[in-house]
């Protein structure tokens, strides 16, 4: 009797599966008919002749104020006549929110600062058509961006998806400081205190680190110096220039004889890891580097605990900046002297700006964002209003007002009340003129030291089509996890290098060769 009753709930569940429609399921919409474009002005401001409202989704960095209260946006609304209904989400839980948003298909008009990855652009643009192609509007409604893309065709190609359309606009960075991610810093005060030269090779560098550790350069009587600071596990992959390990196609790839080659199994990589392991074992490398403890990292930086480290900008340690200087990339055991953490124009995610298929006014939206790709617009975006938030100094370079720079709550917090710059990754362009928000003069100098050593050719990641993307995801899901764990274990010494062959075999097993082939195929298209 009881067993038979069990049939009931199962039957019920099955029935609801067949017949339930999940309530009001939204209809599939591919393209909304565009509103008559009459209200959009082709050039100039205001952008629209009648008030227009657009809903916006985005990710709010913790230093940013609520977007509707931001000075730049408030000003811009007056200027353009477009009201942006901001529905941003905080940093915590952003991945969940974003993917669940797409899953529910209740989309905003605009995605701003939503950190859309190439995979997401492919998935939600090409496959489910929830994002619309933006390239049809470039010529007519985005003259600034259009010009930039035409000047840099490799970028235009790189941001296109597998169907040839562009679904997301990235942050473009043509400044010298933005052309590379990490820069190399060393405490010059400590060097001079210990009477050391700036190291030129990997071995010299190691010796300097040893001196930092044992000779108490900060003079406080304690050996509390941390010779080398690396921010996190993933940083390791882009710092192997001295061993000839490049970052082509945004991955651990060298281009050898025109072919894509993942160097994860190379002897050179092994030597690089062995060097790092040696540093770790001797206590020269920050022992917590792999713990993703950002607050500790920042604390160490701002109290000048690190002797040498890698950082993109000096904003975090501005208060002790003058103790440091840059140095040219180290020469490795085979004579390589490269700086490989190259950005080549795109600084941040692929899709900082995108439009959904519910947007009835794509022309207006595109015009709205295009301004930020102009010189005037990017200055406005990054610095605000002249005489209110910044002034031009004698070199004609913008400088923030003192009350913003010295705000008791912190410069970044003050900036976050003005614009979206804290955290970066915005649909705008950064040039040598506007990179000063985060790039101090010293940072520019340091970057200049590294520029000569950037690899001559830089290849951007290819776009994958649906099948390739599926395979890519399936393989990298496990591959990256294994790779990261293995690399960390090698460095901290949990795995001895006897396991190297096993590691290589596992990589093959998970699908490294196939991944290489996918990249090769996609790049040949």
């Amino acid at each position, binding site marked *: 009797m*009881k067993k038979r*009753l*069990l049939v*009931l*709930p*199962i039957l*019920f*569940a099955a029935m609801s599966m067949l017949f339930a429609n*999940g*309530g*009001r*399921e939204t209809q599939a919409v591919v393209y909304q008919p565009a509103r008559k474009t009459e209200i959009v002005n082709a050039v100039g401001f205001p952008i629209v002749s009648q008030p227009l409202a657009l809903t916006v989704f985005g990710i709010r960095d*913790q*230093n940013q104020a609520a977007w509707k209260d931001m000075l730049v946006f408030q000003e811009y609304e007056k200027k353009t006549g477009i009201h942006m209904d901001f*529905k941003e*989400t*905080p*940093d*915590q*839980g952003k991945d*969940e*929110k974003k993917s*669940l948003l797409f*899953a*529910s298909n*209740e989309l905003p008009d605009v995605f701003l600062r939503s950190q859309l990855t190439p995979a997401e652009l492919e998935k939600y643009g090409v496959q489910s058509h929830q994002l619309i192609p933006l390239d049809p509007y470039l010529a007519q409604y985005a003259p600034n961006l259009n010009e930039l893309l035409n000047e840099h065709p490799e970028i235009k190609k790189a941001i296109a998806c597998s169907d040839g359309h562009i679904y997301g606009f990235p942050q473009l960075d043509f400044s010298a400081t933005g052309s590379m991610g990490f820069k190399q810093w060393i405490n010059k005060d400590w060097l001079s205190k210990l009477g050391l030269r700036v190291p030129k090779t990997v071995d010299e560098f190691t010796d300097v680190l040893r001196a930092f550790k044992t000779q108490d350069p900060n003079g406080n009587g304690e050996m509390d110096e941390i010779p080398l600071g690396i921010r996190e596990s993933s940083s390791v992959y882009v710092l192997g220039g001295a061993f000839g390990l490049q970052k082509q196609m945004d991955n651990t790839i060298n281009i050898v004889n025109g072919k894509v080659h993942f160097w994860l199994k190379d002897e050179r990589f092994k030597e690089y890891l062995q060097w790092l392991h040696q540093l770790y074992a001797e206590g020269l490398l920050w022992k917590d580097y792999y713990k993703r*403890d*950002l*607050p*500790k990292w*920042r*604390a160490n930086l*701002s*109290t000048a605990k690190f002797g040498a480290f890698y950082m993109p900008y000096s*904003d*975090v*340690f*501005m*208060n002790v900046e003058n103790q440091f200087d840059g140095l040219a990339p180290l020469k490795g055991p085979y004579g390589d002297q490269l700086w490989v953490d190259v950005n080549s124009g795109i600084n941040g995610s692929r899709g900082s700006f995108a439009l959904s298929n519910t947007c009835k006014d794509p022309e207006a939206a595109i015009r709205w964002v295009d301004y930020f790709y102009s010189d005037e617009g990017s200055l406005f975006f990054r610095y605000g209003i002249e005489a209110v938030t910044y002034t031009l100094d004698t070199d004609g370079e913008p400088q923030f007002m003192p009350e913003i720079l010295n*705000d008791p*709550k*912190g*410069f*970044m*917090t*003050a900036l976050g009340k003005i614009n979206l710059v804290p955290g970066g990754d915005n649909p705008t362009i950064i040039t040598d003129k506007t990179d000063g928000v985060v790039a101090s003069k010293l940072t520019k100098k340091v970057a200049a030291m590294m520029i000569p050593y950037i690899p001559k050719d830089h290849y951007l990641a290819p776009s994958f089509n649906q099948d390739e993307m599926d395979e890519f995801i399936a393989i990298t899901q496990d591959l990256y996890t294994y790779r990261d764990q293995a690399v960390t274990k090698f460095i901290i010494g949990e795995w001895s290098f006897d396991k190297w062959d096993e590691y290589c075999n596992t990589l093959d097993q998970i699908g490294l060769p196939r991944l290489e082939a996918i990249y090769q195929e996609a790049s040949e298209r």
Partner: protein
Amino acid sequence: MFISITYAISVFLVCVVLYPLIFVVSASFSDPDLVLSGKVVLLPKGFTLKPYAMVFENEEIWMGYLNTVIYTVLGTFINVVMTILLAYPLSRHDMPLRKPITLMIVFTMYFEGGMIPTYLLVRQLGLYDTIWAMIIPTAISTYNFIVAKSFFESSIPKELYESAEIDGCSDIRTLGQIVIPLSPAIIAVLALYYAVDTWNSYFNALIYLQNEKLFPLQIILRNILLLGQTEQMGSNDVGMGEKIKMAEAIKYSAIVISSLPILCVYPFIQKYFVKGVMIGAVKG
């Protein structure tokens, strides 16, 4: 001999349970420098109220507090009502279709559609990013329903129903006038189970809430305690090290402040609660 072992173990257990709690309270009143350098072991050192002051100044915590209190009070009320409405009819032996309906309900404890379909449903019902998203999807716990049903079955004798029927009392009135007055214990049990669950939850808020003004306390705590993000994490601050230190220090006071209310409530319900569990247990 045997008794002394028993007492010894009990004392040991009490110490093991109490020590972390005492430590946290002590650390919350101690000078952060001493705490971080490991000098605080049991009693407060360098007595200070600064961490508490910082917590009190933090608006996010207060907002989270208010939200959690609202969700808990409102939510628990709805929880208890719904559970009783469900458990009472199904506890009566004269209820037709009793077994099938109960089975259907218990079935859901072991098989469910999963996070995505539930999320889609919540969105389609328009609950997303509202306080109702924190209350309605979790309105009934099947486990608690079973407890309540067992309670009713075992502590309300059949004769009571029969005499009520003879007196012409409708089933609904029976619930209100006879069953409920006899059941403060189970109401206390349900209220306590649900309230603790709601007070404690963070995951639902993580996926169903976007507006920070609606965030419950646990999400804010998660930010502060586990993700290391406090309001004033501005970079390039002079005294960044100081900030980090304070951020660590307020963790202890935050823990104390957030746990205090629920701990205070317990003694009051304790009497009813224990009785309720007892009755539920014996016949459960």
